[in-house]
């Protein structure tokens, strides 16, 4: 059975034989030509779509939570205000 890392090395190594001696390869790391153009289009596409939904859902979820908190607070305050006004009116009637 092929060990996991040996299998990975087989599939991800560039085509052709490695250049230089074993000693040179142990001392110098050379980048491949092309740099970022070697990036996987599939991974970039998934990253872009993930970013879309992350930004959007974060905004909507946070907004939803804040809306519920605000509605709760407004509701509590309006109930308290109505009670205070009713108490004030009954006190005024009694004193009159």
């Amino acid at each position, binding site marked *: 059975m092929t060990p996991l890392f040996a299998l990975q090395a087989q599939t991800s190594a560039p085509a052709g034989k490695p250049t230089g001696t074993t000693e040179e390869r142990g001392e110098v790391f050379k980048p491949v030509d092309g740099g970022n*153009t070697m990036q996987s289009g599939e991974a970039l*596409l998934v990253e*872009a*779509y993930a970013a879309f939904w992350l*930004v*959007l859902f974060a*905004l909507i979820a946070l907004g939803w939570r804040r*809306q519920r908190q605000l509605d709760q607070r407004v509701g509590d*305050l309006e109930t308290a*205000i109505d009670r205070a006004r009713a108490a004030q009116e009954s006190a005024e009637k009694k004193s009159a």
Partner: protein
Amino acid sequence: MTKRTQITPTDRASLAFYLLIAVTAAITVGAVHFIAFRAPTEATMGIVQKVFYFHVPSAYAMYLGATACFVGSAGYLAKGTRGWDALAKAGAETAVTMGLMVLISGPLWAAKAWGVYWTWDPRLTTSMLSVLIYVAYVVLRAFSGGGEAERKFAAALGVLGAANLPIIHFSVQKWGGNHPKVITKGGGGLQHPDMKTALMLGFLSFTLIAIVVLWQRARLELAASRLADAEQEAVELGLVEEGNP
């Protein structure tokens, strides 16, 4: 005997809002499905080109948010009502959200197509400038307090900030640069009918998403205004202490 509940205009608005969210979610899922499974892979760039079907509509949605901010700001400067101010703030927040999507998705596409994430191309630079203007608006509103002077200052920024929008649009035509001209060059750059359909679905779903975000943020702003009024009334009645609601 059953008790009949009365449906208020607020309930109707909430119902319409939730209905809009459901329709938006359904159309967006349909658009993602079409883009993933029906739209063909582009010949030279490969699958990463599919970022385009959401990148361009999110840029357009940024314009929608910025336009709402401009209209709301101008309305607030003219009339001074909370509704216009809520529209302006919601518009700026929408513009920032959509602008972030543009600035994230564009470089991810560019990494494959150009070999670099970012270049100081006229359209990229003016787009980033526009997002920064709306970030400044949102930061100003978040940290400067809710006074009338601050609102008017922010409204002036909302009006002046819109000046950059036509510059973004025409920059690619006037100053050249690397940015593709698939849409602006007469719309003939998409050579397969399914590519055009995918883009149209992207535009439709992002128009609805922008409306949902605008509506939600405006509702939030109006609720915050109602809370401020209720807190003021509660202070006057002696229910809560001033500065400690």
